[in-house]
Structure formats: structure tokens, C-alpha cells
């Protein structure tokens, strides 16, 4: 087991496109690190550079303190689980798991012992003599993991291992992976585009966008203190609501009314003109069911509810609103960055299951304004960021700035990209 250190890693393809741009991440020994981001953010490329399947254009990759930039994959002693499993179809499950050991020249008894151990851990005992072609998706997934855990690898690398499974199995395997990692205590780097996996599995999460590291923090820090619009929109489901806002004193003017926010937050956002307020759906509530104890640091407003989706334990209410053009453009761009396709600007409100609000009602909505974030619409930066609990926010560097400049020339209106840090 070993720590993995990435120092200013850059991956540039032949056409000059930087798939990974100046990323520095340190994965501590035994840590579960998640690389997350929408498709094309360079997270898989970064993982493949760790394992050695992709050349590193510049920067240093250190595993256990040793620079491995020029080592072949087989000399790095890492175990990887591929997205499509990449099992050897001509070999039985037993031989698939034994494959790395056989290559290392282990004796038959040693192979047998280790394979049996691994198969027991993964409950594959009764399938050992079968071929991968006859297994179900979940079983194949476990064989792929068996092939990884059977070796004494320095670290595990997972490349979207659950994306080929159906929703139920995905949940089960997710827990299984978490349990396995805790038990083996092995350094793990896990790539996913699924923010639920990122939040539930990771000790720390690195959020990437277009090859640039946005924020490196614990799931809790990411959730409570997103460094910019992108991270705020990416983490959380349903996603954070973004609404136009203007701050005057401690009152914030939102499309549905004016609410008050705590003074220290208001101070950071004074005199900035039109801003974007970010409020998570669960920080709203039907005023009728709110405990009076929740009253501090909050406000209420009235709004007409368009659609209600009742799920039993909770309900989602949708409140459409009009946004000024500059905010609208910024939100559309954000939506594109997040691989989404929003049709209209609307507020998503998570209500208690007991709420009686119906479609078309004009309802009194309660909002926890002290949880509200305020973002600068031109840069996307979080003005109300609590830097003491936001994890690592990469410092701006010249290479990055250059890349950003090129970016915004290529497609104007992507200024948001130039804000990350």
C-alpha cells in the first residue's frame, strides 16, 4: 500500500487539447479518493495516467514516494477494475482471478490459497469453474474485483465500475466496495460521473471540469461549501437551485420576494449588483409544517407552485421563475457543463411528506437563508465561501490562466470557465 501523489499533471493530446490540465492531488495511504466530473472532464484520463496506460505530458506521478512517470503498467503494481470489466473470456473464473498471480510466477499452492481467499470474500466460490460468459453482470463485476484484490497491489483503481449495472445492483455493489476498501485499508482511486457514488464512497472527492481540478474536499465540505457554481450544481440531487438575487443590506431580493440573510454573509456580497443565489431544495419547506424551532436564520415568501411530485417521505414542488438575461445565459452554460438540458428556470423545493401543498396553490414557503450561497454571475465564484472548511481549492497558475484564455476565445460566453480558482 502506498500514497499516490500527483504534481501538476498535464495531459495534452496530439492536437494540443489539454485533457488534464495542471492537476495536483495527493492521495494519502489508505485513503478512498474519488475523481468525479461530467463526461469529458479528464477523470478517466487521469486514472489511466496513474496506472500507466496513458503517457504523462508533464508533471510528476509519485506512488509510494517513487516517481513512476516512465514505468510500464506492470511495474507499477497497481490493480485496476475496468468499466467493462475486461475479463478474459477464454479462462474460467478461477483462472481469471489467478491470472496476475500466474504472471508473477506464484506457486500452485499459493495461487490456490489466494484465489480461494478472494473468491470467499466476494462469494464467488460456486462460480469458480464457470466462464465469464455465463455469469451475470454483478458476478462479472465481482470477478473483476477478485482479480484486483488477489494481488498485494499498492493501490486499487476503479474506472466507473458500476456504470454497467442496473440501479439496484449498483447500490448493493457500492456498499460492497466501501466495505471491502475499509476492511483491506488499501489506497483507492475511484472514477465516477455519479455524484451519489462520489458522496457515499469517498473520504475525499476531487471535482474536475474540462481537465481542471475545481475543488478537492470531503463530501461534507463539498456539499456545504462549494467553491463555485459548477461544484454547487454538480454535487447534490436534486441539484442546487440558482436564482437571480440582489443584496441590499441584509435583505436579498429574489424573484419571489425578499428574504433576509445573516450579516456576515451579506457583508461579503455588498455592492456586487446582480448575483446568483444558490439554495438547496431541502433548505426550503412548506411553512405550514415547519417547526417553530427552525425559525432562526430563516425567512418565508409566497409563491405559486406549478407541479408537485409526491414520493411518500417527501415531495418535490416546482416553482417556475423568470431570470434576467445575463443570469439566464450563465445558468444555461452551467447546465451544458453539467451535461444537463434544462428547459426552463425553475425552483425545485423539497417538501416534507406531510405537506398538503397541491399543484396550482399559492403557498407560503419557508427558506433557511443562512444556508444560502451567493455566486458572482460573471466568474461563478462563491462569494459566501467559508474557506476554512472548503478543502483544497487549487491555486491559480499561469498555465491554467493561459488555457482558460484560449478557452474563452474559442467560445465566448464561457467566462465561467475562467473562474474556477
Amino acid at each position, binding site marked *: 500500500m502506498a500514497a499516490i501523489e500527483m504534481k501538476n499533471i498535464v495531459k495534452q493530446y496530439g492536437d494540443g487539447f489539454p485533457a488534464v490540465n495542471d492537476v495536483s492531488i495527493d492521495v494519502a495511504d489508505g485513503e478512498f479518493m474519488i475523481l468525479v466530473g461530467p463526461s469529458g472532464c479528464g477523470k478517466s484520463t487521469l486514472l489511466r495516467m496513474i496506472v500507466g496506460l496513458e503517457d504523462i505530458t508533464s508533471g510528476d506521478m509519485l506512488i509510494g514516494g517513487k516517481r513512476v512517470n516512465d514505468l510500464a503498467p*506492470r511495474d507499477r503494481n497497481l490493480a*485496476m477494475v475496468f468499466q*467493462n*470489466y*475486461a475479463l478474459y473470456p477464454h479462462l474460467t473464473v478461477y483462472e481469471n482471478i489467478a491470472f496476475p498471480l500466474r504472471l*508473477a510466477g506464484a506457486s500452485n499452492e499459493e495461487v490456490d490459497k489466494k484465489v480461494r481467499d478472494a473468491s470467499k470474500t466476494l462469494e464467488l466460490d460456486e462460480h469458480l469453474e464457470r466462464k465469464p460468459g455465463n455469469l451475470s453482470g454483478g458476478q*462479472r463485476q465481482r470477478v473483476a474485483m477478485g482479480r484486483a484484490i488477489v494481488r498485494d497491489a499498492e493501490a486499487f483503481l476503479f474506472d466507473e465500475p458500476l456504470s454497467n449495472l442496473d440501479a439496484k445492483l449498483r447500490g448493493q455493489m457500492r456498499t460492497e466496495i466501501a466495505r471491502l476498501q475499509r476492511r483491506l485499508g488499501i489506497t483507492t482511486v475511484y472514477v465516477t460521473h455519479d455524484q451519489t457514488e462520489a458522496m457515499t464512497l469517498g473520504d475525499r472527492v476531487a471535482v474536475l471540469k474540462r481537465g481542471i481540478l475545481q475543488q478537492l474536499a470531503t463530501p461534507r465540505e463539498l456539499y456545504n461549501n462549494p467553491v463555485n457554481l459548477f461544484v454547487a450544481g454538480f454535487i447534490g440531487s436534486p441539484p442546487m437551485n440558482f436564482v437571480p438575487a440582489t443584496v441590499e443590506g441584509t435583505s436579498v431580493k429574489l424573484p419571489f420576494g425578499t428574504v433576509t440573510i445573516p450579516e456576515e454573509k451579506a457583508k461579503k456580497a455588498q455592492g456586487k449588483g446582480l448575483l446568483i443565489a444558490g439554495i438547496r431544495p431541502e433548505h426550503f419547506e412548506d411553512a405550514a409544517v415547519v417547526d417553530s424551532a427552525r425559525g432562526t436564520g430563516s425567512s418565508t415568501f409566497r409563491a405559486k407552485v406549478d407541479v408537485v411530485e409526491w414520493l411518500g417521505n417527501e415531495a418535490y414542488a416546482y416553482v417556475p421563475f423568470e431570470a434576467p438575461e445575463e443570469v439566464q445565459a450563465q445558468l444555461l452554460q452551467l447546465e451544458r457543463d453539467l451535461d444537463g438540458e434544462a428547459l426552463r428556470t425553475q425552483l425545485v423545493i423539497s417538501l416534507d411528506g406531510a405537506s398538503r401543498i397541491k399543484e396550482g396553490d399559492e403557498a407560503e414557503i419557508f427558506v433557511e437563508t443562512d444556508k444560502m450561497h451567493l455566486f458572482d454571475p460573471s466568474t461563478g465564484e462563491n462569494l459566501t465561501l467559508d474557506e476554512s472548511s472548503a478543502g483544497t481549492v487549487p491555486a491559480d497558475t499561469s498555465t491554467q490562466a493561459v488555457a482558460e484564455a484560449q478557452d474563452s476565445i474559442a467560445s465566448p460566453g464561457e467566462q465561467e470557465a475562467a473562474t474556477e480558482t
Partner: protein
Amino acid sequence: MRKTGVGTYAGFIVILVWCLLPIAWIVSLSFKSLAETTTGSAHFLPQDATWDNYKVLLGMTSDKSTSHDFLAALRNSFGISIIATILAVLIATLAAYAIARLEFKGKRLVLSLALAIAMFPVVSLVGPLFDMWRTFHLFNTWPGLIIPYMTFTLPLAIWTLSAFFREIPWEMEQAAQVDGATSWQAFRKVIVPLAAPGVFTAAILTFFFAWNEFVLAISLTSTTSTRTVPAQMSYFVGPDPFNPPYSQLATASVIVTIPVIVIVLLFQRRIVAGLTSGAVKG
């Protein structure tokens, strides 16, 4: 939609009769005595079935003159075809792997050249080859046939195999490398077994070409020490030039067909598509 069974079977029978009638005729001929074919037998089935022809050809009678030549030819056929096949498949496997996996300048050129060679009429090369082989002392030798057989079957083998290699997901190799394999180990332990159907297909095609080839075999050989069966059969003339020993020719045909059938039966199990199923999700 329900398939109409009767029509399907009728179709089968028509096709079977169409394809198998000439073969049945040859088999029937091989059991007729020399006397019967010489008189011009009009019967489909032999009047007086006999194993004599087989015995004569395989050297089970006292007269060894015919069998000696035929068995030598059979030996040559086997030796030359098998060596040409092994070499062609070996070279084609490596070449096809490079074409499927590596990016290099002139890749298209290699592929189109290979195709051009496959299209080149063999007959037009007989003259030049004959002269060259005499100069190089390859005329009337095994290598003299193995080299052209290998060359003419390589393009097809390379095309077949590179198609198979392209089907194998990249991840298989990468997984092997991460598991600790060298490139060569990954190729040998993962890629070649997965491409086995392709390798067998290429091997069978190559073997058949070499086994059945006639023009080069007759032109580049001069003695029974190198002549293959198809060439040797043209020397089965018998004493009367107007009356070739049809029944013996038919017998020789049947005998040379047997290995082909055996090989196809042996390998057809190997040529099952979808061996890679289960490697990846899909």
C-alpha cells in the same frame, strides 16, 4: 410468422442433390473396376463394387508402381501444405496484430498491397517464377512451392485476422498489462486465444489453397520427390491415351478429399463466433 416446413425441406433436397451429385458420382466411380469404366459404364452405381482401386493406389497389391508415386505425392502434399499453412498463419498473426493495434505510416499501403497481391492472377507469375526458381535452385524443391503458397495466402490471412483482432476490446490487453504482463505475454496469453477462431479460419483457408493448388504445382516441379497430389493426378494416364483410368482418378480424388473433410470437421467447432462473449459488458 410460421415457417412452411415442406418448402424448406424441398429446397434443402434440391440444393443437396445439386451439390452432392458430382461427389456421389466420383465415389461411385472409385468403386468400379478398370474394366467397367473402360467399356464406358452408363450405370450410376458400380455393377460389381470393388476396393481394387484403393488397394492399387495405397500400395496394398504386388504392383507398387502406381502407389509409389501416389503415396509420394500425398506425402509432398501434406508436408508442403502444412508447412505453408503454419508459416502463413504465424506471419499473418503478427502482421494483422500490428495492423489492428499500432498506428504507423504506410498502414494503408500494406493493406492495399496485400489486397493487390490477392487479386494478382497466379498464372501470370508462373513464367517468371519458373525462371527465378531455376536460378535460385529452388525449382523442384519443397521451399519452391511453400514460398509462393505462403505468399498468395498471406493477404487473405492478414485480412481475416486483422478483422478478428479489431473485434477484441483494447481493455483486454490493458487489463493484462496492469495485471503484470509484458506486451508479448498479453499477446500470447490473452489476444491469441481470443483470436483463435480467426487463426483457425485463416489456417483452413491457407491449407485448402495449398492442398488444391495445381498450376504452380505442375510448373515448378519435375519429379515425384516434390510433386503434390493435384499435379501427380495429371500423370495418371494409363497405357491407352484415349482411355484414361477414370476409376483410379476418381479414387485419388476421393482419397485427397478425405483430409479436407476431416480438417473441417475437426476445426469447425473452433470456428464458433462469439468466443469473446463475456469479456466485456454487452
